[in-house]
């Protein structure tokens, strides 16, 4: 009997492990961050031993893996060897955007983290509210740097109350990619610019063009936000969360959400846009393999698509589609920007600014654009030979730049502190709508209800 009790207790302990996993995680993240910082300090003091002329070491957290990560490392190395002020930048890859912002939260509890962090677009409101940052505007003004060098439609996203909070670094917009061969075969000369337009040529693309499916439309919250921008409607109240903290979403009130979902569902019901999965690149495989005639994706996916297609057919690019033919809005940007953290160390802050200035210089941005497919955020980069070569090689990229220039700062998009959660809610409800055949209005209401509840709770707890 005793043996049995011990066994029960042991099993209970194992079961308790499931509980421990939850609260253990955050402290683990805290430790990692602490170790990182410890490492940096050690490196910093070692540096101080070798160079006499007031060297500074700053830590830069980023979320760029793979090819993009290599491009960042190249830029960081270049800065470290070329700068004359004795600044050393330590670049640390922190995993995905979500991981990086979560690590930052844990690290800031212990008040130690990085000097410069790359944060995704939807973390903007959170970062502004956090009180951990030095607005980029202060650094810009202190140096007398001309902000007009930055693409106005990109800067607009990160500008709140006329203050630029973070420096755009890797920016992208969504594009419509289409299979030119299929369009030619179907005899379609006019590329559709709206979802109903795509629906109208759907039959032709399948019957004459030989498409397996008309459109591989991934269920991605970012697209839903862009469709709202295209309709010139607000996603959230209080001026899209820009004049003041948003207290509720607006897309259910102004009808933009239901309109988007109606067009979406109509494409789905006709079998033109089947459910290809969740997330930004869920639709790309069907397109690259030659199954779907059209897909939506980030400009940053252009290179990958061209590589995957590998000349099997000609890839065309067009503006992100409107929801109805008479919409006049533009697209907002996505991607990441650079946030300077307030570590109350003026030397480090200056060093951080020097590094930011280097990263957004025309030369760096042209290199960055050629390597990754993100926009050059500084207009002067368009004159760099590297950029010109790249455009000559990938003329499709020009569409992205024209689309950005045709957009307006008013289409900058919403800021919401709980955006990551809101995006997931939107994706889940779109799936529910497609799978259960419920009405678009009901789906939009369901989204609004859940997101509003989250906003309300967040605002209550984080005044």
């Amino acid at each position: 009997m005793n043996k049995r009790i011990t066994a029960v207790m042991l099993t209970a302990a194992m079961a308790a492990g499931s509980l421990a996993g939850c609260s253990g995680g955050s402290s683990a993240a805290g430790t990692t961050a602490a170790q990182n910082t410890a490492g940096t300090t050690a490196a910093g003091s070692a540096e101080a031993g070798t160079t006499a002329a007031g060297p500074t070491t700053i830590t830069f957290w980023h979320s760029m893996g793979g090819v993009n990560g290599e491009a960042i490392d190249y830029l960081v190395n270049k800065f470290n060897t070329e700068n004359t002020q004795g600044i050393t930048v330590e670049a640390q890859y922190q995993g995905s955007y979500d991981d990086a912002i979560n690590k930052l939260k844990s690290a800031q509890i212990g008040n130690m983290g990085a000097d410069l962090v790359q944060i995704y677009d939807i973390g903007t409101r959170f970062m502004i509210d956090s009180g951990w940052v030095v607005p980029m505007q202060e650094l810009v003004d202190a140096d007398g740097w001309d902000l007009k060098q930055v693409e106005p439609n990109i800067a607009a996203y990160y500008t709140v109350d006329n203050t630029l909070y973070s420096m755009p670094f890797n920016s992208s917009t969504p594009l419509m990619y289409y299979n030119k061969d299929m369009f030619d075969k179907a005899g379609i000369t006019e590329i559709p610019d709206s979802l109903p337009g795509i629906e109208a040529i759907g039959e032709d693309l399948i019957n004459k063009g030989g498409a397996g499916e008309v459109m591989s439309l991934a269920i991605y919250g970012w697209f839903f936000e862009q469709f709202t921008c295209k309709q010139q409607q607000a996603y959230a109240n209080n001026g899209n969360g820009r004049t003041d903290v948003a207290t509720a979403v607006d897309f259910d009130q102004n009808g933009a959400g239901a309109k988007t979902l109606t067009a979406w569902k109509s494409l789905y019901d006709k079998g033109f846009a089947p459910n290809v999965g969740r997330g930004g690149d869920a639709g790309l495989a069907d397109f690259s393999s030659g199954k779907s005639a059209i897909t939506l994706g980030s400009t940053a996916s252009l290179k990958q698509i061209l590589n995957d297609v590998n000349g099997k057919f000609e890839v065309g690019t067009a503006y992100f589609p409107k929801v109805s033919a008479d919409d006049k809005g533009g697209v907002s940007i996505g991607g990441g920007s650079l946030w300077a953290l307030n570590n109350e160390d003026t030397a480090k802050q200056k060093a951080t600014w020097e590094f930011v200035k280097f990263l957004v210089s025309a030369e760096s941005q042209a290199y960055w654009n050629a390597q990754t497919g993100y926009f050059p955020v500084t207009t002067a980069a368009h004159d760099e030979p590297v950029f010109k070569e790249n455009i000559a090689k990938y003329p499709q990229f020009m569409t992205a730049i024209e689309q950005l220039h045709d957009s307006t700062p008013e289409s900058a998009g919403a800021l919401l502190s709980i955006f990551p959660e809101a995006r997931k809610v939107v994706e889940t409800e779109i799936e529910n709508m497609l799978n259960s055949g419920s009405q678009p209005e009901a789906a939009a209401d369901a989204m609004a209800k859940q997101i509003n509840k989250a906003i309300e709770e967040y605002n209550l707890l984080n005044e």
Partner: protein
Amino acid sequence: MKDKSLIKRFGAYGYVVPAMLVFAVFLFYPFFKTIYLSMYKTNKMGEAKLFVGLGNYIDLLTSKSFYNSIAVTVIFVLIVVTGSMLLGLIAAVLCNKTFPGIRFFSTAYALPMAIASSSAAMIFKIMLHPSIGIVNKLLHLDINWINDPKYALVCVAVLTAWLNSGINFLYFSAGLSNIDESIYERASVDGANEVQKFFQLTLPGLSPIMFYTLVVNIIQAFQSFGQVKVLTQGGPGESTNLIVYSIYRDAFFNFRFGSAAAQSVILFALIMCLTLVMFKVEKKGVQY
């Protein structure tokens, strides 16, 4: 004399202290912290901010999404435990005889144990892709495995069953080698056929290890996470929103530790009850 009896009485506890310390830091402290957090709402930093008592629990118990999570988890556990135990048992019985190449087969059957769940999920994600995946190509089907709520849960469950079958294979193999060979000989003399031998001798002989495997498998299945995160992220809709994934989402994505902690406590109570029930049932089914 007095000292000696003191050591005799309390010495044993001294030996337990190091292990208890480890438990205290990594299990008991987080355990109680979780219970504490489950009674609060937390701010964006994950700090307890607003005391709500049982508020988080009431929210959960009145939310459809939470019941869905529980229902999905129960179905998932049923498929995984049956699947992984059957796979492990069949493989172990097959490998119980010696034949050329036995090493290769036993390694192959035990291999899933060594594969990380997320990397297996990545491979399955490609294999199950509707237009470029090998599964549809081979079977000449056009099924959207991961994005169709009818199949998504089954896909994740089958993957998990396969992953868990490796360790079961190992347990069952060990159990089989513990069964005395001579009882089979005696049964043969009495004229028993192979099927009778399997049900009358092998299964009862395996029952102690089988019980242990069952308990461990159930707990393990309840805690599956990596596969869901990689394959479906709880979707489509909420059809694969297993409770552990839902906890992760609330805690590390929505930064709502209170609700996540409350879900953890409920999960703990569930597994605890289940385990106690199983130990009660054990008396009837297991032959030592």
